[in-house]
């Protein structure tokens, strides 16, 4: 595998990991904009804009866009997070030029009024769909509670009110100020020549507007709190909790990954043995959610409403123990093996490499090969985990609960 990179005059960053041994090539435009870059009056615009991109340009109608991607058998989609809007596709190498031209064109869409009006209905349906998924609602409300007053608290989808009120002119202005080449990283992984990537980029992206937007990445200072959202008729209580963790650029992030896997992976973790194996909960997991400047350890629990208090208390004891005593050498070793295998397996497909390749560049301007990741993992020590816990202990600072409970058990 070979790594290449270049920055165009307009600021577009291009990174590629070339691998002649695979059958496909995956590419993604990582646009550094998401809900945290919005203001309240345009809440949800980044995600809505992600949809509108597929409505096409003067040259390509929405129908053309859908048809042409399907004509080349592209496996493609897009996603929006708090921080990044990502447009990606995996294709057979011979179809890369067509798929590439399409994505690089539609990133600067026409944003026609009638398309805007129609797609608004689809966005409202998407909000409706997630509204019926308690685990998703728990996550969204937790972000709002934990990061209250901080940009990370903003909802990705926006609300029925904010989307209904949003105007096409507001979206056009947002697009104009955020879809600047300096905000975009193109990552390419798989079976392709570097010269092909360079040619395609020069041909289709050179004219993109230059510029970059600033983002306030001040670390959040969460005050914590409890929010209970009663859902009459529900069977299970879904509880999400968060406390501060190392930011995405921190060297502590590798230790945070390992720690949360030891503590709260979906199998063979401390939470698993305490709560899932005996049937006390349906889900009990801990994850490391890293963002630009501020991150969170997120605990997720699903169980019967009458067991919530006991289970949260049990989690609290588990966290206190690890904060005090750390993890064992045995746990560390097993978890390293588990994560190493995940890294290798995921990397076998170009699509699996794409998000790692792109995120490393977007967040840290660094290239890390699979071997680099494996080496860093193997070098982690108990002392590293100890240092992490000193700075960022596990906790249950902010809590959101959705389910039959009307108030939180004392």
């Amino acid at each position, binding site marked *: 595998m070979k790594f290449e990179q270049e920055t165009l005059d307009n600021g577009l960053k291009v990174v590629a990991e070339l691998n002649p041994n695979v059958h496909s090539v995956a590419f993604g435009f990582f646009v550094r904009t998401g809900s945290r870059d919005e203001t309240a009056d345009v809440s949800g615009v980044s995600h809505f804009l992600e949809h509108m991109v597929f409505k096409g340009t003067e040259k390509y109608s929405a129908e053309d866009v859908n048809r042409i991607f*399907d004509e080349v058998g592209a496996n493609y989609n897009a996603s929006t997070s708090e921080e990044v809007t990502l447009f990606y596709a995996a294709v057979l190498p011979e179809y890369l030029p067509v798929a590439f031209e399409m994505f690089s064109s539609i990133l600067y869409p026409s944003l026609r009024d009638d398309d805007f009006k129609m797609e608004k209905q689809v966005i409202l349906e998407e909000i409706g769909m997630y509204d019926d998924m308690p685990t998703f609602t728990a996550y969204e409300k937790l972000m709002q509670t934990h990061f209250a007053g901080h940009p990370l608290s903003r909802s990705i989808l926006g609300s029925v009110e904010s989307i209904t009120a949003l105007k096409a002119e507001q979206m056009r202005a947002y697009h104009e100020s955020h879809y600047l080449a300096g905000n975009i990283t193109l990552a390419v992984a798989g079976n392709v020549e570097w010269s092909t990537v360079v040619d395609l980029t020069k041909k289709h992206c050179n004219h993109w507007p230059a510029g970059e937007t600033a983002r306030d990445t001040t670390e959040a200072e969460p005050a914590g709190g409890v929010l209970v959202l009663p859902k009459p008729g529900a069977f299970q209580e879904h509880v999400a909790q968060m406390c501060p963790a190392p930011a995405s650029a921190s060297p502590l992030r590798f230790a945070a990954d390992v720690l949360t896997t030891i503590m709260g992976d979906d199998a063979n973790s401390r939470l698993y043995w305490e709560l899932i194996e005996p*049937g006390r909960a349906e889900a009990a997991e801990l994850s490391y959610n890293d963002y630009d400047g501020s991150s969170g350890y997120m605990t997720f629990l699903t169980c019967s409403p009458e067991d919530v208090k006991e289970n949260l208390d049990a989690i609290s004891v588990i966290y206190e123990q690890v904060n005090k005593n750390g993890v064992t050498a045995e746990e560390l070793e097993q978890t390293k*093996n588990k994560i190493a295998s995940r890294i*290798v397996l995921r990397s076998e497909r170009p699509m699996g490499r794409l998000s790692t390749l792109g995120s490393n560049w977007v967040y840290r301007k660094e290239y890390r090969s699979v071997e680099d990741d494996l080496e860093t993992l193997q070098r982690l020590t108990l002392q590293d985990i100890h240092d992490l816990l000193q700075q960022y202990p596990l906790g249950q600072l902010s809590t959101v609960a959705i389910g039959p409970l009307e108030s939180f058990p004392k």
Partner: protein
Amino acid sequence: MPNQQIEIHTLDNGLTIITEKMTAVRSAAIALSIPAGGCYEPSGKNGVASLLSDLMLRGAGGNDSRAISVAFDNLGVQYHLSPGWHQITFSAATIADRLPETLRLVADIFLRPQLKQDSFEMCKIGREQTLRSIEDEPRQMLMIELRKRCYTPPWNRSSEGSLENLPEISHQDVRTHFQNCSVPTGAILGIAGDVDASQIVSQCEQLFGSWSGESPSLSQGSEPKPTSNHIEHDSTQTQIGIAYRAVPYRDPDYYRAWTAVNILSGGMSSRLFTKVREERGLCYAIGASLNTLKEEARILCYAGTTNDRAQETLDVTIEELKNIDQNVTESELQRCQARAKSALIMQEESTMARASSLVRDWFHLGHITTLGEVRERIESIHTEDVVAYARQHPASDLQVLTIGPQPLQVSEST
């Protein structure tokens, strides 16, 4: 298409071992299926298969539950054991040189699980939690309830089990299910990756050679079939499910059916996505898929939409299903074929996808179709074949099910 190196070997006791050597990968994936799915559960005990799947991993051979997990983690094995309608299937992937150690653990799980009483009690409580959580997710519930209505027993059982039946299931029921169903006759082991077929076969002869037993008989399936076409639920969206008959994987017309379903719902230029979402903005999620059992199959269609637009969504969707034989174009067909070509070639990058595909082919067809053959079949289909298929198997006798605050009117005369 890549040239595939596939070998098939059947042990004396009936276990079929199928290997595919893939040269560009470092990993190996396993899929092992036994005839122990929901169709073999005793009537009124839906959940036995899922409980057995939960329990098999909770101790096997000399290892307790924790020792199994630790051993798999140390080998870097990603794995799960899942109950289905026909089979219980263990799927796993790891770095190829760890395959021999992994297979030893797998043999313990299938031949010597401990199936302890106290573990069973814990699995049962856990299963109840899972089933209750499904009731909180109307979209998940819809597919389970739709299958209950469009297939006949025993094929309509939920592979997750049922809250009603759960209290009736004893530890002995699960043990009996294991004894009847964890057998080499009808069991299929598929392995794909950087592997050597002869080494695998000789190791499997040692590990699985002593395994014995005949295929179990199908359950009578005498339980009543639900008939209501609406389930009331206080939700923001109405979930719409529509099912009708299609041909199964083993049928000579399967690829025509596959093409028809893809014209309806494969990719964002497909008819349902275009007519229901793009042109009318009626929903975010809509799709249809071909759900195939060994002897029969259904097209299962799904749409989720806010309540006041649900009737229009249902009407437009049914109209599209009914009109599938109208104006089938070369361009639609070409897109299905292009998508199939990409998907088939990219399957060669995934050992997990190949291992499951080997098992699936052997189970349904009794032979392996190479990716090249699949592509040839798909590319030999013409528009008139799709039209002919759609007219022979029209969207009629629709089973419609909705979950939401209000029932809808089904205009189609069923």
